[in-house]
């Protein structure tokens, strides 16, 4: 008995002490029991508009395009005052049920991230003409007349493809890489061989070829052959150790600039490059100087793909009633894609390469120079 009293007294004292730590908010009225609401960020005076997003199986924390898309949507939520709702898929079988749930949740705009969502988004767009849809990294198409015909591109009144001419920026990155390489060997590798990955590698290889032509050099590209569309892939977007191993292999073959197009797997390559000492990395999707600060001393440049911005712009237009099914195409011109500054490695890039890159950039923008890829949409 004595013991129980002692424990009770002690816990009472502790409770009193802890009660002093946090104070309850006074205004009860502003905290209704709204936990039934999804993770919304509707601010005061919110717009009556709901923008929603479905990830592909990578999830929203993939440090790659799903994450960029989610960041764009969240920014739209906080800056435009629209309500947002994001759902994650764990496999391709989740796409349709997730879209169904968002439709039931009365979303005005539903954006699917990744080409794998093409069919589910298209089917939902056809079945729900009063809801707008967006699709990152793919356009819409119907199957060909017979099974041997290629799919026929279609335009949906309420479906907007968000596409990127990534090869243009990757071309410039390849040019810089070739111009900066001391060993005359550069390398690239991908996660899985899909168009949104190989488009980077095509541009990179073309950029190196352009440099060789301009300066009569023979810089080699390891890991990708544009003509055969064959190269090195780790097989997933998760296992960093594979990125590390594949990068080590390239470094052993003399490569001193590597562009990993594999989401987080690329960080493994950055680790291998840092270990090796004088090897540089070309980042993808975002400016790695900022997003991977551990490796900022070896980030030569990055191929930036502004998925977040494109999502933000789409939500912005749609919430103001001016949704258009016109595809958004990110280019060097509209800064939907770009290459990052050279930051700490600025002094390593020869001045004539810098001038040339600027020239090429203008030529691409003006349309004088065409950079193409079979993976282009």
């Amino acid at each position: 008995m004595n013991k129980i009293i002692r424990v009770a007294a002690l816990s009472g004292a502790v409770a009193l002490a802890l009660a002093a730590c946090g104070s309850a908010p006074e205004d009860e009225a502003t905290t209704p029991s709204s936990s039934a609401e999804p993770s919304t960020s509707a601010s005061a005076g919110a717009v009556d508009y709901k923008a929603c997003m479905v990830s592909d199986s990578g999830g929203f924390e993939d440090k790659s395009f799903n994450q960029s898309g989610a960041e764009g949507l969240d920014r739209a939520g906080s800056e435009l005052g629209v309500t947002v709702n994001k759902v994650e898929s764990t496999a391709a079988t989740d796409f349709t049920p997730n879209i169904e749930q968002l439709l039931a949740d009365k979303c005005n705009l539903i954006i699917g991230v990744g080409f794998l969502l093409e069919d589910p988004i298209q089917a939902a767009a056809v079945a729900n003409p009063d809801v707008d849809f967006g699709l990152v990294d793919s356009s819409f198409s119907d199957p060909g007349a017979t099974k041997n015909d290629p799919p026929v591109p279609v335009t949906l009144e309420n479906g907007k493809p968000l596409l990127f001419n990534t090869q243009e920026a990757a071309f410039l990155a390849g040019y810089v890489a070739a111009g900066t390489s001391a060993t005359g060997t550069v390398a690239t590798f991908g996660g899985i061989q899909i168009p949104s990955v190989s488009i980077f590698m095509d541009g990179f290889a073309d950029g190196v070829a352009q440099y060789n032509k301009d300066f009569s050099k023979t810089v080699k590209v390891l890991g990708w052959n544009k003509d055969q569309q064959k190269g090195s892939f780790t097989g997933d977007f998760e296992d960093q150790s594979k990125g590390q191993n594949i990068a080590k292999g390239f470094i052993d073959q003399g490569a001193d600039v590597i562009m990993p197009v594999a989401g987080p797997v690329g960080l493994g390559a950055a680790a291998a490059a840092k270990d090796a000492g004088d090897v540089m990395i070309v980042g993808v999707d975002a400016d790695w100087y900022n997003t991977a600060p551990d490796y900022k001393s070896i980030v030569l440049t990055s191929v930036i793909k502004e998925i977040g911005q494109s999502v933000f712009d789409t939500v912005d237009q749609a919430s103001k009633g001016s949704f258009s099914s016109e595809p958004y195409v990110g280019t060097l011109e509209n800064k939907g894609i770009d290459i990052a500054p050279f930051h700490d490695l600025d002094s390593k890039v020869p001045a004539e390469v810098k001038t040339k890159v600027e020239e090429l950039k203008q030529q691409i923008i003006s349309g004088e120079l065409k950079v193409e890829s079979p993976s282009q949409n």
Partner: protein
Amino acid sequence: MSPTTPPLPDAAVPPPADTGTAPLATGPDENRGQGILREIMSSSWVVTTLAIVLALVISGVLIAAADQEVQDAAVYFFARPADFFSAAWDAVSSAYVALFQGAVFDPTAATFAKAIKPLTETLTVSTPLILAGLGLGIGFRAGLFNIGAQGQIILGAVFAGYIGFTFDLPFPLHLLLAVIGAAIGGGMWAGIAGVLKARTGAHEVIVTIMLNSIAVYLIAYLLTTTPFQNPGSSNPISPPIPESAQYPLLLGDQFRLHAGFIVAILAAVFVWWLMGRSTIGFKWRAVGSNPHAARTAGISVNSAYIWVMVTAGALAGLAGSAQVLGTDKVLTADVAASFGFDAITVALLGRSKPLGTFMAGILFGALRAGGFAMQARTGTPIDIVLVVQSLVVLFIAAPPLVRAVFRLPAPGARRPRTPRSSTKEVAA
């Protein structure tokens, strides 16, 4: 042996003295593994139900912990604990309400069709789980711990998909061929493990896990080759399956429920007959109970291993056909999602019996289908749903733990203090 099965000779037959011809793997280790399997399978319905309840309770705690409002209220818990509890209650109840609305019946929907749609979604999602789970159950009862349903589903889907989008055939024939192809694909893949086990004693757990890996990379590779891609596209996604090879929809265009579910029902009945009423099933169960005794009794243990695996694989292959010919209508690299692994849970939860597996498959289908609603409506991370499933497995796999939590008596345990303990219970 007559088709009407006498009770199994269980431990009545002593192990044969001559083990010279026994495969390497039938050592004491394997017998222990079978013992564990048997214990899991023999745990009572009460324990299974309590395991689910326990999993839901613990998940409720996790849902509350993951909720932003609960976290906010926890900061000033000691100043106003009521806030914390009401936030926690709101989070948990709304999550489970959404789970129910997404899995069974949604009274908030505009039309009746939309209101019952969740139930049909549950059945759609449970179809591959039931089919693969039935196959795994056969293996478990024959003493084979087959982890390979994932690979078998993939191979089934590859065969079904290839037949589906390559050939031009009229409706029932095309579907039938694709379905048979799926069964052959899955059966062949599992048969590899069966043959290796029978001929060399290679352990089926290791072989099937490796075959899973091979299947995953095989389908990834196949989808980069021209015959498996849409013409003029390099996306790793197959051409769509034509209608002539699709499972017909059961309830019209509004619902995704397709004839694959009928296949699952038929398969459950077939497995019930096979394992409960046929001579072959009797032999397989005998092998599962005691391979030495079965061998002494004149049953060919090796051929049983092979055919058990082939049957299990064929059922898993049908699960693949349900996905590619019914639900997805296209072949992608993650056509098998995690069905192959979830099916292990389904089979264990259903204690490897056809009816149990069927019900467990529907339960898991409901958890999955409801998970989508839980995520979309309450912002509960999809991972929590996976945690619920995993907790169910955890508790199913540890019957003594559940019995300890709920103070249940051990099954078959003698109770020496019968008179006293019973009066005590009444008093309490």
